């Protein structure tokens, strides 16, 4: 039997772990390796969409299954001069602009949006950090707005522009493709747990795209832009966190 002291075993293991880590961190700086690693996101998206029902609905819950308190996250208040002025006026001057590859650009006020048919859903919000909260959302199906704007067939993505700069100079934004845009649970929500959205939760209007992690659910919406590719939008990766930190654009994983 080979004799090995506990100390040398531990030192050996720690050195191996340390060496492995340094190696991995170095590897992750190589552009080719990053590309290969990041391409796993596409494999997940293809596999999920190939093997499962693209129209599958996220689970909906009953009122007794809801979180006692729905935790706000990310920006709690955009705090910009424009947003402060608009919120002080109870969003009377707020407009949602629908632009880009549409035949009929729109500029909608909050009362106009609230006058459209609603959908209510009690769903689970999953943050990329790992926590989940269940809340009741009320809003207008995105499909209704897209039909009103007469989306062109060349449109491949919808970009959601936000009033929020996440504390820096870059505005928050997100994007989804048409599979999620026309999904029945994809709504523009104006109420959470039977109350108009609080500022912390994205007042006056936020996206709910229930088969994705929380960062896709853009808050403080001011515009929806239909585009045929994402390369020209801000950092080009389709979203604030995708540009800034390398999060997956497909957040269904």
């Amino acid at each position, binding site marked *: 039997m080979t004799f090995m002291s506990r100390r040398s075993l531990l030192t050996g293991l720690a050195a191996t772990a340390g060496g492995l880590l340094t190696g991995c961190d170095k590897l992750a700086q190589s552009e080719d390796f990053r590309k290969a690693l990041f391409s796993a996101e596409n494999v997940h998206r293809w596999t999920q969409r190939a093997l499962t029902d693209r129209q599958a609905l996220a689970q909906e819950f009953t009122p007794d299954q809801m*979180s006692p308190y729905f935790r706000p996250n990310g920006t709690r208040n955009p705090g910009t001069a424009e947003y402060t002025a608009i919120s002080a006026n109870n969003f009377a001057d707020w407009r949602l602009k629908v632009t880009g590859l549409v035949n009929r650009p729109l500029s909608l006020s909050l009362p106009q949006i609230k006058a459209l048919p609603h959908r209510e859903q009690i769903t689970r919000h999953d943050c990329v950090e790992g926590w989940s909260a269940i809340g009741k959302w009320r809003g207008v199906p995105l499909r209704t707005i897209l039909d009103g704007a007469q989306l062109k067939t060349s449109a491949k993505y919808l970009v959601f522009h936000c009033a929020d700069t996440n504390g820096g100079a870059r505005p928050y934004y997100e994007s989804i493709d048409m599979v999620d845009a026309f999904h029945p649970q994809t709504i523009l929500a104006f109420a959470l747990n039977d109350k108009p959205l609080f500022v912390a939760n994205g007042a006056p209007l936020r996206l709910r795209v229930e088969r994705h992690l929380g960062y896709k659910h853009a808050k403080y919406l001011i515009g929806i832009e239909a585009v045929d590719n994402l390369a020209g939008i801000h950092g080009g990766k389709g979203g604030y966190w995708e540009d800034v930190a390398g999060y997956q654009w497909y957040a269904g994983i």
Partner: protein
Amino acid sequence: MSHEDRIAAGSLVKRHRLSTRIWHWVNAIAIATLFMSGLGIFNAHPRLYWGNYGANFDTPWLELDRFPGWITLPGSYSLSMSRQWHLAYALIFAFALLVYMIWSLINRHISRDLAFRREELEPRHIWQDIKDHARLRFPTGAAALRYNVLQKASYIGVIFILIPGIIFTGLAMSPGMDAAWPWLTQIFGGRQSARSIHFIFAFALIGFFLVHILMVLLAGPINEVRSMITGWYRVPPERRTGEHGQ
């Protein structure tokens, strides 16, 4: 007399199949990467809950400090990079298991080497194997070529329970898969329960890994590692009877 009983001590024999060797080393890399990047992901919210939901204002069953940088991937906190590593290697890990299971059914590795034989499951036999392990008496001669009953139980547990459990609880945390397969999330008792089970199973797998490394060290690391790389294993010599019960 079986073929194995005629194998002379000290001779080199082919012990591990190519499929087992490939899968073993793929797993060694994948599990190290997944465990360390998984701890990096856990650090983003180091609290675990039971049920469908769980966030800062709910009561966790476990709350830890962040794991230190020497054991996480990357070494400094980055949730996005930990996720990139984790989600890439998760694919390798899951599909490697699928291929290995199919391959092992076809080449009869499962039925020949892993399945329990009736006599092995007798309490007397199991107790003998426990005693042998406790005394660190490893099988010699031809007996060393077969898995013993505790070894089989741990391999079966890892291949058919632990690793599939880790894969499926991982899938149950994906919001896309939750919509597609809501039953999967419900089997585990909700998304936060799935996350807790994923964490527990990951540490159980690391427990297996530590015992596995210890057993390799005790049984003769050079011979064991060589057999897992080349397939060739040197049969350990029989103990002389005088050594019994030392």
